[in-house]
């Protein structure tokens, strides 16, 4: 039986979508407050993603959100997050530049609990996965959060830049070891980049993509759809 070209293509999309859907689960916000930790390499879009997530949670779902500016390293990172907090109508917990990120994370979770907030999102400084001491610091931030609230963080999200090449797999692996990553946010998917590396991340590490960022504005954050992703990757 000669295979029909279109049928092969459809089947291919199905297979890719299946791989991309590995281990998928919705973002778990059942805890009160649900603590979300955002991690990733420099410039992959952590702070912007947090801004968008906070906006969606507070403006569309009516949840109260506390943001923790635990990126105490990069110049003006806290100011950037403050701007997003204001746009989203979220509370912000911050400390002076150079403060211990663990203590900021601790305070943010404590504040979220005290104010009976629904969600606390912790921003961290971008770090290259090759820098062992910075990865250790991230593991410490996690431990400190768990000390303030057992079981937290409930969701650790890793931002991956869609333009990243094969290196993305390595990033995911090392971050998963240090920070127990639950899901990936694939950012900057609005360019020509297709983010094919998340396939390798899903199939080799079993870490699913949970959200995609497709633009600059607040609404440009969407849940990940494996089938749409497969279509875009393989072409219609």
């Amino acid at each position, binding site marked *: 039986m000669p295979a029909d070209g279109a049928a092969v293509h459809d089947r291919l999309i199905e297979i890719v979508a299946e791989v991309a859907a590995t281990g998928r689960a919705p973002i778990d916000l059942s805890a009160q407050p649900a603590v979300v930790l955002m991690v990733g*390499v420099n410039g992959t879009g952590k702070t912007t993603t947090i801004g968008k997530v906070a906006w969606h949670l507070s403006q569309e779902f009516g949840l109260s959100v506390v943001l923790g500016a635990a990126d105490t390293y*990069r110049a*003006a990172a806290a100011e950037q997050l403050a*701007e997003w907090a204001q746009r989203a109508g979220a509370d912000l917990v911050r400390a002076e530049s150079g403060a211990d990120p663990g203590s900021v994370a601790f305070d943010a979770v404590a504040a979220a609990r005290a104010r009976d907030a629904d969600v606390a999102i912790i921003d961290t400084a971008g770090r290259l996965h090759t820098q062992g001491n910075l990865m250790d610091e991230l593991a410490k931030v996690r431990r400190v959060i768990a000390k303030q609230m057992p079981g937290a963080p409930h969701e650790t999200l890793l931002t991956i*830049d869609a333009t990243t090449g*094969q290196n993305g797999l390595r990033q995911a692996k090392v971050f998963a070891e240090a920070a127990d990553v639950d899901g990936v946010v694939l950012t*900057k998917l609005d360019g020509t980049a297709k983010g094919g590396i998340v396939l390798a991340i899903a199939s080799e590490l079993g870490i699913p993509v949970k959200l995609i960022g497709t633009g600059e504005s607040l609404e440009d954050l969407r849940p990940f759809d494996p089938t749409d992703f497969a279509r875009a990757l393989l072409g219609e």
Partner: protein
Amino acid sequence: MFDQLSDRLQATLSDVRSRGKLSESDVDAAMREIRLALLEADVNFKVVKSFTATLKERCLGSEVLESLDPGQQVVKIVNEELTTLMGGASRDLALASSGPTVILMAGLQGSGKTTACAKLARHLGESGKQVALAACDVYRPAAVDQLVTVGERAGATVYEQGTERDPVDIAAWALDRAREENRDVLIVDTAGRLHVDEELMDELSRIRKKVKPHDVLLVVDAMTGQDAVGVAEAFSEAAEFDGVVMSKLDGDARGGAALSVKAVTGKPILFASTGEKLEDFDRFHPDRMASRILGMGDVLSLIEKAEKQVDEKQALDLQEKLRSDRFTLEDFLQQMKQVRKMGPLSGLLGMMPGMGAMKQLKNADVDEGELDRVEAIILSMTPEERANPGLINGSRRKRIASGSGTKVQHVNQLVKQFDQVRKLMRQVASGKMPDPQQLAQMASGEGRAPRPKMRRR
């Protein structure tokens, strides 16, 4: 840097080198390996194709196959071609003969423009230039604050007008001020933009037309995959950039972007950013990078680093001290400080020829803590003790150990090793070959002294 690519290429080439004669099929097999290595490193597939075609043609030339040492010839050709691929001779910025030199920075979001602006400002400031920065990223929240902070840290003046004005106007205003204040260089930071965003790409080209930059630099994340080419092509249309700043080269990027960008756009990489600190930024030298990739080290960069840190007079003094056997623990401490100023030791190791091939040193992470300890111990000694370690008896050792927060054994080790080094120096200075047995003993660490500990990751 580019470890994976480096390993694979070195393995292939050492196989080729081990053969006395090369047949055409040997060359074919090697080319196949090289092609795979490059593709795995995210090098653009078109670039890989033409690169290996050129390589093959040159390697199959009769002067190679019939030479006495064909393997060595192949290595030489690969080195040359890699250098050409990355841009040949290193190039510098085009500086204006009078008035401020204007440098426009462009790139995708998160590629590292703002940081690169500050690093470049510091780099130029080091050579005595008066540098100003223009904050034209009015979109990303707090981008202006970030530039103000890092710009000040870099010793540059930052011209900013908040986020309400049009970036094109801010750029023009900043250029006027730079002229008035007689700055040598004005670096214009722009907002990150996606190459498919027509509106913003148009804005970039309007800024370019307004300030007429001498150099337009595209900042590219070294970890970018196959998409690097699409990005570079789009930016070369809107911004007509002259050169590239490769950022985040300190990660374990595979090198694809660095190896493809010149071939695709014809524009060379001018600078490389290699760390979190402002000083982790330097000119990019294709030839040195090629020999690092092939495991031949980068002795030139190492020498340059040393020259920056080491004072010639001090070095001569030291030489004299060694010769006349007046080398003290104080000198030892100064030496150690100078070496450490050159950056983390693991970085320096990477520049040594042949280090890549040494398996124990692979991924070795020199424990800087050990060096801190040695420093602490010496700093806890009195000046007399440093000058004459023979003074250090049991009770002094105890005092030094508690003063430096170490144990008596550590002090013992240091004193013992210092003694051995001094003996060795005396032998060398007197023209005698050092006793090989003694050398081996020191190296194997018998009567072990605190030497930098290698730790595998």
